[in-house]
């Protein structure tokens, strides 16, 4: 189940970034990024730490100024119409820090006001319910766990019902359960509330599960851009097969005419480069040839590529 709005709606750009550069003294953090996020997208913004993700997001939120290049959001230039644009964006930038001495409820009330709305009691409670903090509404934020703080952070990004939601590594530091909750919430926001979402992450798997389009950036440049399904389901993959008898196993594979597919052997492991539909046949042949298959670990090429980056 992936968001399909991008396909149904006319492709209407929400974020357009052209030739974006950001240089600090003696260091170029972002070197000419181009990307377009369309209405209804859940857009994965991937890259290893230090690739320039946060810098780009900070420029999108006008926290810092680009050295050169252009950012258009909702078709308007960010440098010219900052306030009217920000009114329609909700964001978590880096760690979402809120006022620990105030309750979750009060935090949302104040930040909602600052976003140009008059938050109603039901409005605030609805958002808190959405992030699963309804019964802790009146507790002070400093008493919250990390996961709960992250969810209030998400709530402050949603309080003014923005059209575009920008989340900078929203699952950092969360336990697996917390990650699942955030992921479900992102899917819900996309499907039920029809929000456009830009999600930055350094975990490919996380993006794969929610996003429909993505870019991978590395060292300040876009390395790969495209449709998540297409990028990840390319035929070719790298498989590590652990067998009981290495020489027999290699022989079986060679007999299938795949000797060129064998990239490496180590211990009892054979590393193969094959297309996806060959795997089942190889597995059967190994077992029929009297070789026990201990484990099969597939690694898709994009995954491998990404691992090499990080």
């Amino acid at each position, binding site marked *: 189940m992936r968001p399909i709005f991008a396909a149904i709606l006319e492709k209407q750009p929400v974020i357009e970034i052209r030739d974006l550069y950001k240089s600090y003294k003696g260091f170029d953090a972002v070197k000419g990024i181009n990307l377009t996020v369309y209405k209804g997208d859940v857009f994965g913004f991937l890259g290893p730490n230090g690739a320039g993700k946060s810098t780009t997001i900070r420029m999108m939120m006008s*926290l810092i100024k680009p050295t050169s290049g252009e950012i258009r959001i909702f078709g308007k230039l960010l440098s010219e119409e900052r306030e009217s644009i920000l009114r329609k964006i909700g964001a978590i*930038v880096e760690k979402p820090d809120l006022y620990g001495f105030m309750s979750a409820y009060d935090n949302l009330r104040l930040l909602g*006001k600052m976003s140009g709305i008059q938050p109603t009691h039901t409005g605030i409670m609805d958002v808190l319910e959405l992030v699963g903090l309804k019964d802790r509404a009146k507790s002070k934020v400093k008493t919250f766990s990390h996961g709960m703080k992250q969810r209030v952070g998400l709530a402050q990004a949603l309080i003014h019902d923005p059209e575009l939601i920008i989340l900078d590594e929203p699952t950092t530091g969360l336990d697996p359960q917390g990650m699942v909750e955030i992921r479900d919430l992102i899917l819900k926001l996309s499907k039920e509330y029809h929000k456009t979402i830009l999600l930055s992450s350094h975990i490919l798997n996380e993006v794969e599960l929610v996003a429909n389009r993505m870019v991978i950036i590395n060292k300040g440049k876009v390395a790969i851009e495209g449709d998540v399904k297409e990028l990840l389901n390319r035929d070719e993959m790298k498989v590590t097969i652990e067998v009981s008898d290495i020489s027999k196993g290699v022989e079986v594979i060679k007999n299938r005419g795949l000797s060129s597919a064998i990239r490496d052997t180590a211990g009892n492991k054979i590393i193969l480069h094959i297309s996806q539909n060959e795997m089942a046949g190889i597995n059967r042949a190994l077992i029929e040839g009297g070789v026990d298959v201990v484990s099969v670990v597939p690694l898709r090429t994009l995954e491998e590529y990404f691992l090499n980056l990080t």
Partner: protein
Amino acid sequence: MFSLIRIELYKIFSRIRTYIGFIAIGLLVPLIQVALFIDGETYIEFSLQNLKEAFDFQGNLLNGYLACYIILATLYVHIPFLITLVTGDLLAGEAAGGTFRVLLTRPVSRTKLLFAKFISGLIYTAALIFWMALISLLLGIAIMGTGDLIVIKNTVYIFAEDDVMWRLLAAF
């Protein structure tokens, strides 16, 4: 703009540390006043011993105005500390805590945001000073009554009773 200031003020006055200043003044000032009330005569005797030989002082010298003057002269060094406790948090505290970033992602211009913080800092300072003026004057007068104010600096100034009030208020 007005609502920004209100938000800043709400933040200031929903913290415990904001009231430290009020509590500190609320404790220190009466303490000084009670001490003066009990032992103030000695203090005046000591300050005026040379003069007493030559002049005859009349009326209630140990009064609320004198207490207020002494308090002002002693505490004006400490008040800025109390103020910094709160106003320092307005910007530096928020920047360090990361909440400033959350504010900057709001559709509010930075100039307005900073100006709102400045104004609310001023309002807090004014409130603290007002509080100090209130208890040091009212409580002082309640305990020790009114009278002429004697101020000893290079020379001795004696302010008439009906001339004192505005001078003290201006001092605050």
